[in-house]
Every structure is written in C-alpha cells, then in structure tokens.
C-alpha cells in the first residue's frame, strides 16, 4: 500500500471516529435520561448507543493500525499501548493512546456487564466523560486536518452536540421517578442502630 493511502486512511478514520464517538456519547446521555417519543422507543437509543460504539472501535482500529504501519513516521507498536512512548509528537499521540485505552475498558466492561456487576460497570462507564475530551484534544493537537475548514465545521458540530448533551445531563440528575424515595429509604436503613 502506498504511504499516502495509509496517511489518508488514518485521517479519514480519525474523522469518522470523532463523528461516531460523539454520537455514542450523545446517545449514552439520551438513554440515561430516558428520552423517548412515539416514534423513537428507548431500545432504539440504547441499541444505537451500543452498536455505534462497536462500530467506532472498528474505525479506531483502522485509524491506529494505519498510523502505526505508516513508514513515514515509523511509530512502532509500543505507541499504541504505552502512552507518551512515541518520539514523534509525544504529548498528542500519548493522549490518543490514553483515550483509546479508556475506550477499550469501557467497551470491554460493557460486553461483560452481567459478569462484573452493575456497580463496577457504572464506575468504568463514567470514564467515557474523560475519554471523549482526551480523544478530541488528541485530534486537535496532531490532526493534519485540524485547521481545514471542513474539519472545523465537523468539530464544532461534534463538540457542540456533546456539550449540549452533557450540560443537559448535569441539569437533569437522575431520571428515576422514585429517586428521592429511594435515597430516603437508604438513609433510613443506614440510620438503624442495629445495623
């Protein structure tokens, strides 16, 4: 394969990953908030959330593999695994490595949610809110296209929609209609002297 083709693939797959992961975060927030309407049942949100996340992993794999086998930078496989181990753009590539490892943890734990239990899964899943911004900074820092017009528009749309979703998420708290009754109950149980 020619070097230029590899380089184009890295950039293209990176941009696609940005779109998919932004969609995944927005869909995650929408499912946590139980957004639904007559034509959009909740299983559609969670199903898309899951399947687009899996699709994003495929594009990220393409993004990473083509970047590493590109002879122009000869990054080496260690770059994909050990953050900040690359001689080339150490900071920016290191952020990419961290974001990817967080994502792998999030997806892997989600696929075995039944085995590890809800609490552990939840704790790891919150890392999504760390992983996504780290990945975006990685892209801004090292992306060949970061300053081109189309990528700017794409970034504004992606960052904008995630920002709106997250602010909305923070404003809503829990979507459980019995949330206050539950925490009240837990507080009472905790106060019992014989426990």
């Amino acid at each position, binding site marked *: 394969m020619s070097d230029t083709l590899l380089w184009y693939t890295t950039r293209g797959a990176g941009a696609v990953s940005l779109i998919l992961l932004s969609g995944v975060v927005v869909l995650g927030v929408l499912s946590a908030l139980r957004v639904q309407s007559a034509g959009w*049942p*909740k*299983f559609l949100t969670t199903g898309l959330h899951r399947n687009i996340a899996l699709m994003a992993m495929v594009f990220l794999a393409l993004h990473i593999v083509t970047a590493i086998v590109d002879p122009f930078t000869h990054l080496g496989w260690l770059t994909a695994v050990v953050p900040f181990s690359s001689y080339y753009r150490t900071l920016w590539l290191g952020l990419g490595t961290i974001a990817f490892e967080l994502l792998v943890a999030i997806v892997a734990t989600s696929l075995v949610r039944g085995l590890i239990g809800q609490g552990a899964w939840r704790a790891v899943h919150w890392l999504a809110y760390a992983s996504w911004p780290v990945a975006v900074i990685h892209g801004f820092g090292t992306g060949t296209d970061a300053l081109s017009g189309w990528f700017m528009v794409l970034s504004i749309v992606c960052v904008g929609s995630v920002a709106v979703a997250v602010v909305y998420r923070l404003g809503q708290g829990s979507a459980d209609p019995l*949330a206050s009754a539950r925490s009240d109950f837990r507080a009472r149980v905790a106060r019992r002297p014989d426990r």
Partner: protein
Amino acid sequence: MRTALRLSIDRIKCDGHGLCAELLPEIIRLDDWGYPIIAAGPVPEGLAPLAQRAVASCPVLALALALALQPTAASK
C-alpha cells in the same frame, strides 16, 4: 418435574426504565408509574431469545431469566 424458563425482576434494582416492556410486550407490561409487571407463568419456548435480549438490555441489570423446576401433572 420438568424445567421452564422464568423471568424475574429485582425490585430493588429496577428503576423503571421500561425498556423490557418495549422489547418483550408479550410478557411484560408497565404499571402506571412505569414499573414492569410480568405475566404469570413460564416464558414460552419461542420467546426465550427475545426474553434473553430484554435481560441483556436492562440498563440496571434488574431483569433475570432462570431455569426453574416446574411441577407437571404427571409428577405431582
């Protein structure tokens, strides 16, 4: 005795997402507050895969599918 699949809900964990009723309306409906009510009796054979999918989709893992012994007329 023979075995049959049974759906059960952990009422402490369930927080009324209602996803299960969307995916398995044949067996699960929601009460007025959005909490699930499971139809009495075992899960029909043909619905087992769909029931499994509903279990996997519950956001808080409150739904469970388990094999239970079921008394039959002959073995009573």
